[in-house]
């Protein structure tokens, strides 16, 4: 008797994990894992599409996290990543430190940059926060373009060789791809876990009503600061992948272009969805690589895709999921009962579309 009870309890906790979201995540991870095995030219696909998608996605994910859970739109995420990249170049190449301590120190420096940004910007809200983060990233860009001693100015620091960590050799492109995939998944797990923690509930509360959170005794700015620091840490993880992808670091890493590219990736993927950024990153990487084949204005094309997504899929490309599902269930329904007229369906679809728009 007791054993049957136990089984039901077990299947209960087991079933709790089988949500649509988790299934999609699992499928995407599996696709990520088999990607090197199915592409025809791994030497092209793994670095140019795979790894690039992963670092762009990771950095964009930190932007989405701040937007979705804290209600802050930070345009400094690319800069935090770049600062970590610079750190790795500076510590390992310029100073000659071993690679592992260099990476750890650089993750710390990237996070510290987030913390300092928070001290400056966290009291401001919405559009001002966005403008301050943008301004700070530009300040760093112009500093990095000039500070010969630290950043080697416009030339940057190069080469930064991929490390051979003994048990894994990142010079092997497949290994490097899996290394990047591991870091990207780790970043996702960090954010998902955080969102479900007490801290995560609190920052979501702050997003909805900071006044109320203060009235409940929460120190709103400290929570925002912690969240921004965490997001800078994850962006820095993206910076680790980035610097070993390029084998160098230079001011273009933190230029306005790069900053806006991350915003495009976040919006195209879906600014309300942590995992969607990887779709955004993939689309972006594909455009970067293939649009050049038939037009030399690939930035224009990227811009058009960006505007198209904003117009037609305000929830980003992940917003396609529910739409497709609805199409399928509608088809199932219409074939089941042909009697129903067309008009209400159209109305319903228009209605749900509007609702999506409100979710921005």
């Amino acid at each position, binding site marked *: 008797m007791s054993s049957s009870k136990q089984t039901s309890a077990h299947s209960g906790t087991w079933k709790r994990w089988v949500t649509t979201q988790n299934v999609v995540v699992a499928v995407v991870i599996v696709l990520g894992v088999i990607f090197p095995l199915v592409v025809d030219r791994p030497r092209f696909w793994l670095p140019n599409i795979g790894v690039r998608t992963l670092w762009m996605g990771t950095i964009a994910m930190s932007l989405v996290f701040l937007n979705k859970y804290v209600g802050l739109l930070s345009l400094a995420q690319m800069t935090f990543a770049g600062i970590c990249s610079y750190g790795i170049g500076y510590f390992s190449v310029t100073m000659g430190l071993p690679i592992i301590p260099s990476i750890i120190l650089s993750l710390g420096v990237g996070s510290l940059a987030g913390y300092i940004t928070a001290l400056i910007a966290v009291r401001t809200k919405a559009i001002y926060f966005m403008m301050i983060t943008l301004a700070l990233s530009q300040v760093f860009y112009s500093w990095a373009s000039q500070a010969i001693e630290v950043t080697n100015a416009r030339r940057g620091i190069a080469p930064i060789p991929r490390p051979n960590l003994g048990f894994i050799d990142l010079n092997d492109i497949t290994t490097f791809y899996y290394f990047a995939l591991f870091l990207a998944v780790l970043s996702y797990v960090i954010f998902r*876990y*955080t969102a*479900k*923690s*007490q*801290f*995560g*509930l*609190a920052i*979501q*509360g702050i*997003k*909805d*009503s900071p*006044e*109320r*959170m*203060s*009235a*409940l*005794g*929460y*120190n*709103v700015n*400290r*929570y925002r600061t*912690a969240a921004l620091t965490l997001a800078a840490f994850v962006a820095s993880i993206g910076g680790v992948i980035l610097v070993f992808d390029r084998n160098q670091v230079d001011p273009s890493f933190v230029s306005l272009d790069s900053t806006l590219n991350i915003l495009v990736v976040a919006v195209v993927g879906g600014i309300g969805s942590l995992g969607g950024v990887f779709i955004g990153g993939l689309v972006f990487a594909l455009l970067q690589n293939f649009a050049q084949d038939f037009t030399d204005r690939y930035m224009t094309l990227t811009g058009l895709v960006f505007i198209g997504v904003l117009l037609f899929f305000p929830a980003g490309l992940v917003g396609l999921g529910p739409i497709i599902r609805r199409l399928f269930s509608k088809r199932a329904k219409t074939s089941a009962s042909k009697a129903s007229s067309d008009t209400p369906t159209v109305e319903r679809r228009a209605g749900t579309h509007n609702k999506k728009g409100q979710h921005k």
Partner: protein
Amino acid sequence: MPTREIAIALTDVDKRFGGLRAVKNVSLEVRAGERVSMIGTNGAGKSTLFNLIAGVFPVSAGSVSMFGSVVTKQNTAKRARNGLARTFQTSRLFEQLTAEENVFIALGGRGLGWRSLFPARSIERKWNRVAELLTTVGLSSESGRRVADLSHGEQRQLELAMALAADPKILMLDEPAAGFSPAERQQLVKMLTTLPSEITLLLIEHDMDIALQVADRVIVMHDGSKILEGTPDEIRASQVVRDIYLGGGHA
């Protein structure tokens, strides 16, 4: 009661919004455990006074004390941690979260320690308390629903549960009955009259029945000033109050 310590003291408090003087030279004392209602016409400055006590914005002049220490310069969060809880006249809830998550947040991890990184679901003791609070305000059946889907009255009830969650020493309610049905009003009165006697209650309420039923003492605000203070009976009998409400239109 008379020997109890003073929970809230305002001394010569003024509040200006640009050219508008919303609170004019108000002084008042509320003793611990006292039940005080604040009445007055729209725009009299009642909510502004609440905000000054809670520290939402600074006073333009004067000082605010809680339990004998001056808190004029303290921020809202600090005052809240020292035992002050309040509701808002227009509900400020966490729209995207469920009713129970709202109360859970109100129970607070007040500090920002490592503990706040524990998964929220794992803390059973807190969720039991959440269920208790939702029952107290009559919302237990709605616990899993998103706030955005709750009715206006239900949101007001949730506001109450969240204020109670902090186990406050001072509870300030800004028109808690707004939007309540007669039955919900009765339930509110019952809940307020059965609050633990050590809780200090400050209540803004346009519903005169509720305001007078619950209070030991009533403060009448008009045009930014405190114009009258007295027992419910005195207020009922007051010609001044009648004049204000008849002259001032809507009550």
